[in-house]
């Protein structure tokens, strides 16, 4: 009698979605993503030596960077890698799915689960800071008052109508409308409160107004009043770059539009006249209006005796808001937090020379909605890891073998 072959065992069919979910929440993906973040961090650390921190971060970790090709010591490394922002985003997704969906909810793993939640919180804090934080600095001389901070990187065009020798109305064209105008691209801008039409072009990230000289090549560059913008290599410290662009101004009087060069290195603004009205135009770092004014009452810079090693920088200030005054002290490691803004003692400066010279304090101003989130995430992560490792250690000690102790 022939025996019938038993039917072959069939594996339960797993849907594509389930497999995708398993992959996205898997430890394999987590390991690869962590390796990638490590590699990107290491390469970015090396690349910032030559390229500067600002450009390296934009290259490696900006959300617009989908992939990067490392360049170390001026040599291109032919190893295309995914952009750091998206690797972190995928890791956050992996952690969330792995933590929430796949993790076995037994008490032994509760510490790991808590730690993962803390890391997700930290990554979210990083993303929020990346997208929504603002930074600038406020330089105030001893006894002076200021209510504006200056952005470190963003340059804007400020057009002001001057009345009685002072700016009356000011309109600002943001950096996002200028920085993409490289090559032959141009953009027209009409100012709502002024009879002026502007056409910007030829944006250069770092340039210097240079006299037109027969011996100097300036092919293709627009010359104006005997000057043209000479492109310069990017500075390693990106905040030291002095960008420039060309602007064509139409004052709407039927005349031919005039061309000017705008440069943040220029010492004087461009002056425009429309009948009796006077306007000035300048390319400068963006000013950021504070909701209150700060008066520097006293600045102290102390050094360890006989050295140039700083021991203490202290700014004693008065916060002035709607006529109300409040005293505060800002010093190293002790910032002032007020109205969702944080003021840090960043550095100091000397304004002027000789006996009339005044000390000036430089305060860093930061607005970051996720200011304290990393701190909270630390508590979560530390608690989670502590629970896990103590449990592991206890298990190890209990289970350790005391037999044959030898080497």
């Amino acid at each position: 009698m022939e025996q019938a072959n038993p039917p072959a065992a069939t594996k339960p069919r797993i849907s594509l979605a389930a497999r995708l979910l398993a992959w996205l929440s898997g430890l394999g993906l987590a390991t690869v993503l962590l390796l990638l973040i490590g590699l990107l961090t290491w390469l970015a650390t090396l690349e910032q030596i030559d390229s500067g921190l600002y450009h390296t971060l934009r290259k490696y970790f900006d959300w617009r960077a989908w992939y990067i090709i490392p360049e170390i010591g001026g040599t291109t490394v032919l190893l295309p890698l995914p952009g750091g922002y998206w690797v972190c985003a995928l890791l956050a997704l992996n952690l969330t799915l792995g933590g929430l969906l796949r993790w076995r909810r037994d008490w032994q793993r509760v510490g790991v689960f808590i730690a993962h939640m803390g890391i997700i919180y930290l990554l979210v804090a990083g993303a929020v800071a990346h997208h929504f934080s603002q930074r600038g600095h406020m330089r105030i001389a001893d006894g002076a008052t200021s209510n504006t901070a200056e952005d470190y990187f963003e340059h804007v065009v400020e057009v002001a109508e001057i009345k009685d020798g002072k700016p009356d109305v000011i309109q600002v064209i943001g950096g996002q409308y200028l920085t993409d105008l490289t090559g032959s691209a141009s953009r027209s801008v009409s100012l709502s409160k002024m009879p002026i039409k502007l056409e910007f072009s030829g944006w250069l990230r770092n340039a210097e107004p240079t006299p037109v000289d027969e011996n100097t090549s300036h092919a293709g560059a627009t010359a104006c009043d005997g000057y043209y913008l000479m492109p310069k290599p990017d500075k390693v410290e990106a905040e030291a770059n002095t960008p420039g662009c060309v602007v064509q101004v139409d004052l709407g009087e039927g005349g031919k539009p005039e061309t000017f060069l705008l440069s943040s290195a220029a010492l004087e603004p461009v002056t425009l006249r429309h009948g009796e009205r006077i306007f000035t135009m300048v390319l400068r770092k963006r000013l950021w209006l504070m909701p209150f004014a700060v008066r520097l009452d006293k600045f102290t810079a102390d050094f360890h005796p006989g050295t140039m090693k700083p021991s203490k920088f202290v700014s004693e200030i008065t916060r002035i808001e709607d006529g109300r005054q409040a005293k505060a002290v800002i010093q190293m490691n002790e910032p002032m937090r007020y109205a969702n803004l944080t003021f840090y003692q960043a550095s100091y400066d000397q304004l002027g020379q000789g006996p009339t010279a005044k000390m000036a304090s430089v305060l860093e101003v930061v607005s970051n909605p996720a200011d304290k989130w990393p701190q909270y995430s630390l508590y979560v992560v530390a608690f989670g890891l502590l629970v896990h490792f103590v449990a592991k250690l206890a298990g190890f000690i209990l289970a350790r073998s005391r037999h044959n102790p030898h080497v």
Partner: protein
Amino acid sequence: MSDSSSNTGRKLAAALVLAGLAAVFYNLVSVTRPPPGELRTIKDYSPWSAASIAVAESLPVQDGGRVKPLATYAGFNMLAIFGSRSMTVAGNDGKAQTLNPTAWLLDTLFRPQFAIQHPTFRVDNSAVLEAVGVKPRGKRDRYSYAELEPGLEKLIELADGYESIDPKHRDALQQQILDLAYNVRDFQSLLGQFAFARSGVAIGSGDEPQRLNVSTVMDKAPRIRDDLAAARRDGKAGRGPAEYLYQETTQVAGLAMRGMNIFPPAEASDRSWQNSGQRIMGVLNGVTHSPGPAIQDIMALEQSVHALDTGDAAFVKEFTSLCNDLAQRAAARGEGRHLALEASYNRADWFFNAFLLFFVGALCAVAMWMLGTGRSGRILAGITLGWTLSGLVLCVIAIVERCLIMQRAPVGNLYDTIIFISAACVLLALIIEGITRRRFALGLAPILGTLLVFLSRRYEMGDPKDHLDPLVAVLASNFWLTIHVITITLGYAAGLLCALLSTLYILMRGLRLDRADGELRRALTLAVYGMVCLTLFLSLVGTVLGGIWANDSWGRFWGWDPKENGALLIVIWTLVILHARLGGFIKEWGLHLASVFTACVVVFSWWHVNFLGVGLHNYGFTSGKDVLWTFYQAMLGLMLFGGTAKWLESRK
């Protein structure tokens, strides 16, 4: 594998470890000691009495932003110029006499006739001497100031030229010539400190002119200034006796205008101490508000110098009086409260003694491993533990004393990290031993202690400056220094220890020294897993704490500073190991190979980022990078060896 071949392997491994330890010991001794040379005999040389040295070593000096005992000041000056804190010379009797830093400095300050004959200048490249026209004795040797004197003009001329070259573009010889020029300049400034007291101001002409004490001239300063002003008014400037006295005094004071700030200012609000030159010129120029104390100070110094001609007892009496007065004035200002403690810290040389204890412990550890589990092995385990604990205790005493002297948390600079990591690694290894009781961690503890204390000595030699220095403003927070820096530093220690445990595993299993003892392997693997977890915990918590500190001081949680990135890399690498292990992508061999790589990540974070020349944690030094590359190669070589051993094992 047979027992006999395993035993042969053990002997071979023990021989290799011993050879390595011997190389470390020889290196430390050969670098710490100056190059061998003929014992220098100095005519009529007599050593300082113990009483003179005891008085001098606690004399307060303001230097590098803090008040320290003369012993510390002398130690780092001697280390920088001579390359060691111990010098041997001979007197008329030909017997070798060892000079400690205080004795060496006392000679330089008070007895220049001997000091210029001391073999003070260590020259490691004879080409330096050839370049300045001095005949060298060999490739490396030590030279006295008197021997270098014929080439000093050329040395200064060359140094002037090389100083303008960017340090990155200077070649080794140029840098060595510059270093020698700086050392000569520093030595000259020490030699000249009390020259005014010896020479006074010569008045009159002839072979033996009369000499006025500088303090006497200072006493007459108002009249000298009046006479000078009158001479200028009358158009007779440059010819009168007042002008002569002023110029002569300025000249001798000029030799004492750099360093050796031993006089506390009278005003409590004035934080800068003065040296003899400033004291003299302040009175002479009428800048000092109350000249009386300044004149007294200079007179006391002159009396000490003159008393030396009478004899040691007279010198001790005068110098003790001066030192006590200065120490009391410093104490009245609330400064120099730990001078005696620091002087005793210097005398104790805790870390060198700890090195010796760890070294003997390491030798015992090798013997312990060789002897196995028998009675003699157990006895040796006890002895190893004794030596190791003794070394650890010395390290802990030294670290605690440093905290008391500095009044701050134990880790504030790179040198602090080395000694702290040394103690932490040994302690962690002993804790692991306490848990596992398999003697592998017990053996590793003194070896690690030896290597890390050796590293601290080498680092101090390469960067001979006071590492008890005050902190810059941003670091001046004991709270953050304690919780962030210590946590991160402990993370480095844990990372290094897990790499070393894995090194042991790979070597034992790869060389088949463990007799395929599965339990031993499991114990090592569990220990490494535990250390990876601990490294992650400490590095992660330390990194986030650092971010919180940075958020409070610089306004950002994360600044992508190389040091921050280095710490993050340790966190990420340990996470990679744990996730790969959890996912089953690496097993026992894989865990150990990955754990060895942890050492590379830790060393990158701890040392290598300091060479990159960027960031807020940049220390700005450039030498010694080759050692790092050698270390990376050694670690990668070990991983390759482990990978090959695993492959061979899997083929069987």
